């Protein structure tokens, strides 16, 4: 029940906002803020009550806060019955994201104070997006997952397109087309899986993701049965399905070369939407790869692990090199996201406990840090409507508190020990390094390549810090900018402090996350390696 409340509470608030008269539009943001605050409280409750000794991943019994009801039952004549369940539940792989999503949404709501136009539409779409994201992480029925997954696109399209920057139309449709391209083919695979898998209890076909993970549930000779080993266009059907699903999620992550929507979307999106994009939506890709791609097609995942690792390394290096070359602060951070998300792929592809834990940790840590970074860029942009790196110098002198937050965010992001990103990246790299001796999936040089990425990360962050914040204050906008560039306000601190604290706390006590996810990660690794 609690999971449904968490998921659909924002939807109810959105309806409330739609129904309230426009004269009250100044109160919409308080409704939104209150909603997200309640969500944070609920997810903290979930976190505290989450039993860390239950694995989940492949068995429904191991999931917690489960809700399982039948939803759509269609009689399809010769095809049998189309059975779709409302099936939500949490395990170690999804629970951290509930907390992450709630906190990021709260921060994004705080950051929405900058929105001034058409507030009714904005906050309604914002809350719709909130529902969709929470739903994605909670859904355990593929059909339900797909609905939430697609539902995310719609509010984002309008949020970027209506409240975005100059080239917002281009960015919005590019983002929409990219993602939809990935997901329509996912739909075909989903239907194919449906007809391959039988629920052992009812005998009907099923969309249940957990049943899809069990090779014994596949009908003999079915399209995606492991034993039947069917081919499509000369490629093994399971491998093709894995690739299609991987591409769909990889677009979200994003990986090189499917990342080109990201800088555009980030740069054009208003700050709160950037925060949501970087903080949560990229994680949907990583989560989907773990839960759906690796979970349902472990054989194909092992088969392609080398390539996935390579893509991860390429993303790390390519993203970092691109970040070095950026002149726009927001683009720089967008590319740093590409680089950091590469560690997730590298860690998952190693299929080791260290790598998978590191990937999970990296997603959580990057969630907070990228949200913080985008929030900080937004602070600057709101004051002078400019974010060219070259236009600022010596900001430390006029905005000392802001500089402190920037330094925390930068140092945490570049992987300074004591911050969460350090733990996450180290674990991912250990996983990649050990992979050769443990399961022989990834060669050692991939780990080395990944660590070069950390070095590059340090380079672009420190260089930016030096260029923008140190030295004599020189601003492109002159005296006018100097008066506009006031230090961070109380509201902004309210958003920044928790994120900075989380980055530090998770760096010092990573067990806060690791303890909760460990059982599930081990189960996940064993499942993929078929032990």
């Amino acid at each position, binding site marked *: 029940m609690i999971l449904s409340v968490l998921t659909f509470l924002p939807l109810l608030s959105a309806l409330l906002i739609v129904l309230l008269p426009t004269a009250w539009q100044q109160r919409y943001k308080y409704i939104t803020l209150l909603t997200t605050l309640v969500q944070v409280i609920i997810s903290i409750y979930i976190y505290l009550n989450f039993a860390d000794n239950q694995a989940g991943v492949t068995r429904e019994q191991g999931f917690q806060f489960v809700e399982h009801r039948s939803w759509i039952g269609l009689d399809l*004549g010769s095809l049998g019955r189309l059975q779709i369940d409302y099936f939500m539940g949490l395990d170690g792989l999804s629970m951290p994201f509930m907390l992450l999503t709630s906190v990021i949404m709260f921060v994004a709501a705080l950051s929405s104070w900058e929105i001034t136009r058409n507030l009714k539409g904005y906050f309604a779409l914002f809350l719709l997006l909130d529902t969709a994201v929470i739903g994605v992480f909670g859904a355990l029925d593929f059909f339900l997952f797909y609905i939430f997954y697609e539902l995310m696109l719609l509010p984002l399209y309008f949020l970027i*397109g209506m409240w975005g920057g100059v080239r*917002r139309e281009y960015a919005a449709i590019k983002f929409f*087309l990219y993602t939809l391209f990935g997901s329509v083919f996912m*739909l075909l695979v989903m*239907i*194919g899986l449906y007809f391959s898998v039988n629920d052992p209890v009812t005998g009907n076909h099923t969309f249940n993701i957990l049943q899809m993970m069990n090779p014994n549930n596949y009908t003999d000779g079915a399209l995606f049965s492991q034993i039947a080993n069917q081919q499509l266009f000369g490629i093994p059907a399971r491998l093709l399905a894995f690739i299609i699903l991987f591409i769909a999620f990889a677009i979200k992550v994003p990986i090189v070369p499917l990342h080109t929507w990201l800088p555009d979307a980030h740069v054009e999106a208003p700050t709160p939407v950037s925060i949501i994009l970087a903080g949560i939506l990229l994680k949907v890709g990583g989560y989907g790869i773990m839960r759906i791609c690796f979970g349902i097609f472990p054989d194909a995942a092992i088969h392609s692990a080398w390539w996935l690792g390579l893509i991860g390394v390429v993303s790390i290096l390519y993203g970092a090199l691109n970040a070095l070359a950026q002149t726009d602060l927001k683009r720089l951070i967008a590319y740093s996201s590409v680089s950091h998300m590469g560690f997730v792929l590298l860690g998952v592809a190693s299929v080791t406990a260290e790598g998978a834990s590191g990937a999970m940790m990296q997603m959580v840590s990057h969630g907070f840090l990228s949200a913080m970074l985008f929030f900080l860029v937004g602070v600057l942009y709101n004051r002078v409507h400019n974010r060219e790196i070259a236009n600022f110098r010596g900001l430390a002198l006029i905005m000392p508190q802001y500089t402190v937050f920037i330094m925390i965010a930068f140092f945490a992001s570049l992987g300074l020990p004591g911050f969460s990103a350090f733990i996450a990246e180290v674990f991912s790299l250990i996983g990649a390094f050990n992979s050769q001796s443990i399961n022989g999936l990834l060669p050692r040089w991939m780990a080395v390549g990944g660590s070069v990425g950390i070095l590059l990360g340090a380079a672009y962050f420190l260089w930016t810090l030096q260029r923008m914040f140190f030295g004599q204050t020189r601003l492109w906008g002159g005296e006018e900018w100097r008066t506009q560039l006031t230090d961070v306000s109380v509201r902004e601190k309210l958003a920044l402090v928790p994120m900075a604290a989380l980055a530090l706390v998770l760096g010092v006590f990573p067990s806060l996350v690791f303890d909760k996810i460990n059982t599930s990660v081990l189960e996940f690794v064993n499942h993929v390696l078929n032990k």
Partner: protein
Amino acid sequence: MQQSISQSINEILYGLGYLLPELALTALFIIVIITGLFTGKRADKVTGIVSFTGLLIAGYFTAGQLTTESTVSLFGGMIALSRLAVYLKLILLLCGMLFLLFTQINAELQQHKKGLSDLYAIVIATLLGMNFMAMTANLLMLYLSVEMVSVGSYLMVGYVSSNTRQSEAAIKYALFGAVCSAVMLYGISLLYSFTGTLVLDNEFIANLRVTPQLGASLAVLLVLAGIGFKLSFVPLHFWTPDIYEGASTPVTAFLSTAGKVAAFGVVIRFLLAFSPRHGFLIVDFQQLLSIIAIITMIIGNFAAIWQDNIKRMLAYSSIGHTGFIMMALIAFSDASAKAMIFYLFVYTLMNMAAFMLADYIEQKTGTLKISEYKGFGKKLPLAFCALVIVLLSLIGFPATAGFIAKVLVFSSALELYNFSGSVLLLILMAMGALTTVVSLFYYFKIPLFAYLKKPDAEPVIFSLPKNAAFGLYISAGLALLLVVFGLFPQLVNGWVELTIR
């Protein structure tokens, strides 16, 4: 002799019992003409109410036929009443009723000096023909019903010929239509001379089997071409955009929905004769139709990208949808028949709603051009909100009925793939998915202009009579239904129980 006469009279009398909806439509046709003549100035309102009530009565009779268990052959094999046909007839009547409502809110038709009573009579006659299309079991009946619908459609397209563009559309339509029926008639005459029978039964197939392959295939293709004109699949689609643009919007909406539903009905009846149950395929329909469907999806969807006029855009998108529904036709199973009924029902709702909204927006803003919608999103919030939902459903976006419809069609195609393993089917499905992405591009041009682009000047909104707002509420209601059926498709699907035969 006497025996056979009384026997056939008995058969006819027996058959009439199954023809109540059609008899009701015939009676309604006459009543509407007469009331139209005698009510003078109030003719529009009165005939409108009479027609709507009449259609409800016909719907009541049709719903009564849902109790028929298996297909009933009537009038010496002229007509076959199957459950599938009954569902199609219900959808057709729904189209008719929505059309009647639509005429009430369309300014062009309301101000038309000829009045509306004649149009109502024509629609009813067209619906009658469409009903027969869905039930035909005989080549002659097939031709007659298609012609009846064609003549009705020509009249409807030409009903408001206020400018040359509209006259051009009407004459184009009549010319193309006449050529296509001539072609079809030629095919039918060939088939008759090959087989010696017009009834689409086992004897017909058996006789066709012994005729030379080339001749038989040619004859079948010619008949398919005639039907293809009605379905407007590629390459017989070229008339659609001009006619859809030229005809008045309610007529376009009616022809693009009801016309498709009836055409799918008749093509199913025709293909049934050739279905694998008879163990004989003269033409490899699966392959032929797959190729046609692929091309239709590609051309329909890609051509729609470059359209600026919303009616033309919807015309091309309807070609794309035809290609998609053909996927269910190719699968040709009980499941695919169900999927097709669901798709056609949903398509009726969303297409009608899309045209109604386009019409409403045209009356409010004076433009049909998508590129001139700039800034209207905020001025007409309800209309554009409903339109976005309808467009999402047309794309097949989750949580709308259009999504469920696509899932069902994909499912039935995949079932056939599991059975046959044909690569062409895989390509067909992949193309269905790919064109869905393409369709996003042109459907979303509307919200792009209405919401995202900033207007150059303050948008001007005309105030309208009350009945136009009535249309807005109807279409908003339809949009809401699309979401409800998307979340709970069993509300529709639970009623549908059929086999394809």
